[in-house]
């Protein structure tokens, strides 16, 4: 079976594209897939630090397209999973350093020559050149949004742009949702957002302090089997692979659940 290229995008910045890319890639590798993560945010690279691989960068994506090195020389092997790689962005160049055509060729090579099952492209924020590059080689798109007007509005705009580029049926991850706020009527719920955006939901990720801790350490939260957000990303990976899993029940962060955690009941 040929590999799939999935672009992770959002329009708005700061909603969790890079965190989602790192965790989806890691969780897919945990399922035994060969995965290459591409950081398409040239000039503002960050997927390397979220993955904890920043010390290993020698070459980057621009070196590959400019033939300064071979593709496999720029691919950084993950510390934890043999089948997981990162192709880092260049930090001292800009979005025009790669063209959509070059991107298409690159993901093609990763799927065919490098035999990747999944290529995950972390898109930069915005709708300009960097976004166009990121979606160029994609077979499938996942949009990350949060329960805020600005993020959902931008997600809606991205859905329109993806469809115009022929990337049909994008799916959405609703990130950083807080059940307690939804329940008291201070945050849009999953159904509200899905109804408005009219696209399929591929996962919900609860707000989790553990994300900050895992990013501090450079260890994706998908590796943590106790974290709710980790479980959410592992579920998303299994849905990407075609499994039909029910959506996670959102846990309320109230006194009782905190007490249960404290005494080890959940």
């Amino acid at each position, binding site marked *: 079976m040929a590999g799939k290229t999935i672009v992770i995008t959002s329009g708005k910045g700061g909603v969790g594209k890079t965190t989602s890319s790192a965790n989806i890639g890691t969780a897919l590798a945990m399922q035994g897939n060969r995965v290459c993560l591409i950081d398409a945010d040239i000039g503002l690279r960050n997927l390397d630090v979220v993955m904890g691989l920043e010390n290993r960068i020698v070459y980057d994506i621009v070196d590959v397209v400019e033939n300064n090195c071979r593709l496999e020389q720029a691919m950084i092997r993950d510390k934890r999973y043999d089948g997981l790689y990162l192709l880092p962005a260049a930090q001292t160049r800009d979005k025009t350093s790669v063209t959509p055509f070059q991107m298409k060729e690159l993901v093609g090579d990763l799927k065919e020559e490098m035999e990747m099952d999944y290529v995950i492209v972390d898109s930069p924020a915005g709708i300009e050149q960097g976004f166009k590059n990121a979606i160029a080689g994609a077979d499938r798109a996942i949009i990350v949004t949060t329960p805020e*007007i600005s993020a959902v509005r931008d997600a*809606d705009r991205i*859905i*329109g742009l993806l469809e115009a580029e022929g990337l049909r049926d994008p799916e959405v991850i609703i990130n950083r949702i807080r059940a307690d706020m939804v329940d008291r*009527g*201070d945050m849009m719920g999953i159904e509200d957002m899905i109804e*408005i*955006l*009219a696209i399929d939901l591929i996962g919900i990720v609860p707000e989790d302090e553990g994300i900050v801790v895992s990013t501090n350490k450079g260890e994706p939260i998908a590796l943590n089997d106790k974290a709710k957000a980790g479980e959410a990303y592992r579920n998303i990976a299994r849905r990407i692979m075609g499994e039909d899993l029910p959506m996670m029940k959102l846990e309320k962060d109230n006194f009782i659940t905190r007490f249960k955690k404290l005494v080890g009941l959940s």
Partner: protein
Amino acid sequence: MKSEDKKSKSVAKERLQFVLVQDRVKLTPEEMDAMRDELIEVLSKYIDVDSQKIEMDVKREDDMTALVANFPLKGSK
């Protein structure tokens, strides 16, 4: 219900739906209002439209985006 009693979630949803109508049809608020007024004018030639209760929304469906407008008739329930 007074406006301050309204949950911020409903406010967000309404505001979002409003901006998305404009984003999706790519019209400015002025153009939207003008279209709405002209529609009322045309429809009023034939039917008794209750202009206070008109709802206009742009919905995305499977293969298309559609302008869905609701023009309740006066005196109807």
